[in-house]
């Protein structure tokens, strides 16, 4: 007979080992899927996870993909830690991109060191304002932030669509749905000649450090932690619940906005329909895989970024759709949630015993 019982205390070791277990199980399940598709499992996994980062260009690409994921996940960790379920980072990213892109187009062919900082600031503010919508609706009308933030994703995506097709489309662009290429003063500097890795990575690293300080060393971080553990206690302690909801959404939106503006001023260099391969949604997985811990999120963003690259190589070498990347992302989250069960419960095998009343 199997008995499941509650653990008295969750050990820190298990807390950080379960993500590793989840990744291992994902690899096993991935191998099985490749086998069923008729590939040699180990070889396929090698194409997926090793080949993409076996040269310098691959490593640079890994960091290019990990940068926005890490930034967004850092922001989301503020929300998730305090029990606010912001699912709309993708929309905040897009809106940040729109506002930042708008400023970049405004300063088209404009010289001056202040252009880029202005664009970045505009992107952060754009994302922040967009994230304030679900927060304010939650505070004053008690709406469900999951639904509102999710639906706003489509609002911002359609707005971007309209802008790049209509008013902001490139006048010399033969009606392609894209804006002009931003001028050089509006682009994040490339770190190494010939690679795409750009200065956005520093923004991500600074935000990781700041998040760590705020979450673990400040009163605000303490309030976020307590609210996440027990809203009843937060209320009893007299924390300003409404202000905090607004604040965590603003932090989260600003991070997503920065990620958006980092993409358009970094690798992309213009606005078009597909400025993000759903980074905003994937970052939710990153945040949880990293245990909502800034350092954990850095590692998680690298691992999940690898699934993006792996999907591209697999598409080339194995002729499987690039959506296999999403399959792997889904499996990571699935196994992570499943192995979290072990955090709170342990499984005991008992000999069959007859109960008497």
């Amino acid at each position, binding site marked *: 007979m199997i008995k499941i019982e509650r653990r008295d*205390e969750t050990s820190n070791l298990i807390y950080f080992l379960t993500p590793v277990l989840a990744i291992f199980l994902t690899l096993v399940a991935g191998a099985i899927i490749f086998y069923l598709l008729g590939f040699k499992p180990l070889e396929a996994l090698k194409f997926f996870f090793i080949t993409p980062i076996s040269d310098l260009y691959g490593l640079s690409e890994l960091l290019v993909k990990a940068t926005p994921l890490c930034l967004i996940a850092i922001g989301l960790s503020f929300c998730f830690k305090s029990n606010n379920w912001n699912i709309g980072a993708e929309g905040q990213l897009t809106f940040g991109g729109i506002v930042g892109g708008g400023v970049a187009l405004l300063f088209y062919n404009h010289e001056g060191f202040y252009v880029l900082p202005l664009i970045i600031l505009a992107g952060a503010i754009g994302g922040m304002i967009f994230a304030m919508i679900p927060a304010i609706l939650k505070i004053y009308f008690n709406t469900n932030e999951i639904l509102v933030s999710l639906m706003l994703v489509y609002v911002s995506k359609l707005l971007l669509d309209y802008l790049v097709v209509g008013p902001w489309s490139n006048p010399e662009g033969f009606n392609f749905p894209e804006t002009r290429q931003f001028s050089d003063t509006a682009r994040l500097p490339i770190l190494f000649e010939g690679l795409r890795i750009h200065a956005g990575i520093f923004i991500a690293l600074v935000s990781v450090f700041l998040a760590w300080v705020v979450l*673990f*060393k*400040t*009163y*605000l*971080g*303490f309030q976020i*932690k*307590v609210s996440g*553990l*027990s809203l*009843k*206690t937060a*209320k*009893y*302690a*007299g*924390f*300003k619940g409404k202000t905090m909801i607004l604040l965590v959404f603003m932090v989260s939106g600003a991070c997503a906005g920065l990620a958006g503006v980092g993409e358009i001023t970094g690798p992309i260099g213009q606005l078009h329909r597909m400025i993000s391969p759903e980074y905003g949604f994937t970052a939710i997985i990153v945040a949880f895989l990293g245990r909502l811990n800034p350092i954990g999120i850095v590692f998680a963003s690298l691992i999940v970024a690898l699934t993006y690259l792996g999907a591209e190589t697999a598409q080339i070498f194995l002729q499987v759709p690039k959506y296999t990347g999403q399959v792997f992302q889904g499996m990571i989250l699935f196994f992570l949630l499943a192995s979290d069960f072990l955090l709170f419960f342990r499984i005991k095998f008992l000999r069959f015993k007859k109960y008497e*009343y």
Partner: protein
Amino acid sequence: MNTKLKVSKISKIYPGCIANDNVSLNFESGKIYALLGENGAGKSTLVKILSGVINPDKGQIFLNDKLLKLTSPKDAKNNNIGMVFQHFNLFETLSVFENLSIDSEKNNYQLRILVNNILKKYNFKIDLDVPILNLSAGQKQKVEIVRCLIRNPKVLIMDEPTSVLTEQETEDLFLSLKKFSREGILIIYITHKLKEVLSLCDEVAVMRKGKVVSISRTVDEELSSLANKMIGESLNKIKKMTSHNLSGEQILSVSRLNFNSEDPYEVNLVDINFTLNKGECLGIAGISGNGQNELFQILSGETLSNNGSIKFRSKEISKLNPKERREYLMAFSPEDRISQAAVPSLKIYENVALNNFKTSNFFEKGLFNERKIKDHSKKILSNFSVNTDNVNLKSQFLSGGNLQKLILGRELITSPELLICFNPTWGLDVGAINYIHQTLVKINEQGKSIILISTDNDELLQLSDRISVINKGKLSKIMSAEEVNPEKLGLLMGGGLVD
């Protein structure tokens, strides 16, 4: 057909408390039986045993002289024992009919005919196809009753059914119950409301501290005799000496406080008025669920009240949150010490930091001053004799008594002018209870004031200078502790009036 239910020598022991102590009762159909008692008297345990939710340690149950084995709620159902709990077990978004069909073996067509017959017979007006969430509390209860009636129950147990009903709905319910009884259903009615016992029931069994202390016919009883039996004679115990100097200086005044809740399970507070002097302990008695929770939350600032209703040292504070009220030197010890007053998974020093003052400097310039908080926590642990000196211990590993000492210590170490505490000693062992009582007496002697909301009458009489009783969100007149006797307290708690 006649139904006889016999409960024989039932005992149920929980760690540290005997919930049912050798309980024997006889019930026969045609009558309505009341099971009367305070909170914790053992009524609910007995009911849960009868409905198969928990198993007794000892004793037997006989239905029509046949031994019953009730190991699960299903067994109770199969033996035609129906049960309506205080809190409804309905799916809010499903329709009435869907809720009824969930645990019925009949096909939908037959069931609908049956249900319609029941509705017609008892004149229940419920639309079967609206979702439960559109129904009033009284209608939801009718759905629960219909659910029992579908199974042709021999025994129907109602657990404090009127706590969420309006007066009119209560009257309707009583009419229906009397009708069921005439039709031969044995009815057991659990309550702590004295008036309901007299107006509805034929026989009454009174429980106190797990034992049946009296069985009698209601025609032989009146409100005061029942009150006496329910509260017990143990009341005239040691009272606190009200000798310390009461300066007459007013600390807190509450006037025309009203609170209307949207949540049907919460109690509305109606026109609460009282004042509190320096160095005084005001006790608020009452059976739990009569507005104590709501009153505590309003006094602590978790819920805000109408403007001008609360003044502390003649300053208006009704719109301040708990943190701001603490700055005025108020302190709060809530009933739920395990998950509200502290977070179990946080360390002791983190839990201490919850009570953060401007002057405490726990967070200088917004940064967490870990050393300062830890030093402060160590002081609390030693001053309030908490059984550890490890401030890094997670508070879930503290026993109830030590946790409560930590919480009281955290609240009191700042020398507040007023402490508001709610059931500060529930579930604690005698040693811890004594320590906490001594602490409360001591702070009174130091000229600090206390509002003690408690369901433990012994505690109230030991510690309070004046006592009021809360019933259905209304506060009785405030009596000095000397003039309170068991009869008065029991009457007020049961919704009666005293001159």
